């Protein structure tokens, strides 16, 4: 099953209101006709009290028929301060800690949520309690950490599929970065604040922002959303393996898996980094400049020797593929029919990509058969390309010879015509004298 977009689930989940104090609100289908909360607060013009009312018009909860009182309590049918009576359930602005339960009244109630989206998860609060955020807030009373409204801004909550939503995949890094990229906010926790900047240099962000592939991972895909926490060293491979399953399987069976575990190296991230994951290049393999194997291995140790051999194998296949493709392209551009050879060569891309995945086994025995199969195909394609170019040369030579013969023919005809004219002139001249 495709990766779940935690962000999308989150926004959809928060999409339904938080009502009353003792249970989910009664579903009305639309906002109450006489909502004095909105009437008064819209008219106040107070910079603290009016903007929430205006923003709420765009909130998904408003669209589902929930109103102010469903979260804040009170009696919206009564105008003035009388409606804001604690005896009528008025809670005003809930504390961060209380907001968890307030949101959870609906979002943890499967029966209630089923009315809106039967497939929606209802375990956000349970997950939140396991998160670093939740543990700090609920166990230590740290109110600087994120709770529901920090990621799903109260009064303007939108579903994650909405590109303007704070939890749309394109916006998640900005939402998380609001705190995690802030040196001031993070000072008390002593954790880095460069994750967002690094992530935005990664291949994942490029896929997301440039290629607009919204399935590319963002913060919550590796850290979780409601249960956000750094993946443990031993689980990094599992997290990356959600998408990179073939590489993860090779790595899991390799000698590096146990060794990394033993020395506390974080699996994939040891070579590929965690947030600043760049596009993988063949140059990363081996012990030369820019190669990551050389971070631990010297050229002469057994691991370095294998790394060098792996690099040579992959390079050889890539060069052979490029050479064969180049000669076929030359032949094609010269007008030769080489589509079958190009079709057959296309299959070598599969071998090259498979070999690049197989290097995560760090065993030449896993890579060599794939490379050899690819090399056999590139050799065949190269021969077909050379044959096509030889055929082309033959045709061009034939054309040149034929042109020369035509020119010689034209020259011969010219001479013949001149001789005939001279002969005719001679006869005519002799006749006149006779």
């Amino acid at each position, binding site marked *: 099953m495709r990766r779940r977009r935690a962000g999308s689930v989150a926004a959809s989940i928060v999409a339904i209101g938080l009502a009353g104090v003792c249970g989910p609100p009664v579903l009305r289908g639309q906002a109450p006709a006489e909502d004095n909360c909105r009437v008064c607060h819209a008219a106040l013009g107070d910079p603290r009290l009016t903007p929430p009312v205006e923003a709420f018009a765009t909130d998904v909860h408003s669209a589902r028929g929930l109103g102010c009182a469903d979260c804040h309590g009170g009696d919206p049918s009564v105008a003035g301060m009388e409606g804001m009576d604690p005896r009528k359930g008025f809670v005003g602005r809930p504390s961060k800690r209380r907001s968890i339960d307030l949101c959870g009244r609906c979002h943890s109630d499967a029966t209630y949520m089923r009315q809106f989206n039967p497939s929606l998860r209802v375990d956000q609060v349970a997950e939140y309690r396991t998160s670093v955020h939740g543990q700090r807030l609920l166990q230590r009373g740290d109110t600087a950490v994120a709770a529901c409204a920090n990621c799903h801004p109260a009064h303007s909550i939108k579903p994650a599929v909405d590109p303007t939503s704070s939890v749309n995949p394109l916006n998640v890094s900005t939402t998380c970065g609001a705190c995690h990229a802030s040196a001031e906010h993070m000072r008390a926790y002593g954790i880095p604040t460069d994750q967002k900047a690094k992530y935005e240099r990664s291949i994942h962000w490029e896929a997301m922002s440039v290629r607009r592939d919204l399935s590319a991972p963002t913060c919550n895909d590796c850290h979780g959303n409601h249960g956000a926490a750094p993946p443990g060293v031993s689980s990094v491979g599992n997290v990356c393996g959600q998408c*990179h*399953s073939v590489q993860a399987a090779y790595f899991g069976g390799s000698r590096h898996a146990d060794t990394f575990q033993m020395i506390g190296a974080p699996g994939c991230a040891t070579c590929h980094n965690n947030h600043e994951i760049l596009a993988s290049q063949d140059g990363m393999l081996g012990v030369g400049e820019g190669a990551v194997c050389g971070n631990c291995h010297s050229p002469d140790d057994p691991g370095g020797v294998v790394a060098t051999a792996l690099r040579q194998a992959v390079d050889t296949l890539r060069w052979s593929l490029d050479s064969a493709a180049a000669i076929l392209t030359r032949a094609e551009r010269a007008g030769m*029919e080489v589509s079958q050879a190009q*079709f057959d060569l296309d299959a070598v891309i599969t071998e090259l*990509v498979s070999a690049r*995945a197989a290097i995560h086994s760090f065993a030449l025995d896993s890579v060599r058969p794939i490379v050899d199969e690819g090399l056999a195909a590139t050799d065949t394609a190269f021969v077909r390309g050379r044959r096509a170019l030889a055929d082309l040369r033959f*045709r061009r030579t034939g054309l040149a010879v034929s042109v020369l013969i035509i020119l010689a023919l034209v020259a*011969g005809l010219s001479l013949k015509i001149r001789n005939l004219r001279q002969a005719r002139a001679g006869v005519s001249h002799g006749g006149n004298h006779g």
Partner: protein
Amino acid sequence: MAENQSAPPVASRRRFVDWLLGTSVGGLVAAVVYPAARYVVPPASAESAASSVTLPFSPDDVEPNTGRIFKFGSQPGILVRLASGEFRAFSAKCTHLGCIVQYRADLSQIWCACHNGHFDLNGHNVEGPPPAPLPDFEVNVRGDQIVVSRGA
């Protein structure tokens, strides 16, 4: 006497020109017509820059719940016959890194072995790293022939 001495070179030159003209006809046929014919006669494999291809197998050759790779120009395509008997065809190049996909009868899905990418039988990427669906082709069955065309 002087006229008699000058005649032989002229005759010799004329004979050479006559010989040249005569033999050129054969050379012309051999050296001009043959290469030109080689250019004109279509190559053995046709439909290289195809907008449609007739597959080299008949509908009966493709069992339900199976798939076959075919050549569409110089690019690979995959023909899938659903369990219902319906034919569908897609580009066989994975939208991730260009590996050639295959049909998995056990999953009733199109699958890329390189990175375990899965596509449903509408070509939609449903699991793994492929970022986009497989481009689809139109399939028409005309008697014993399967004709695959690029969509409009």
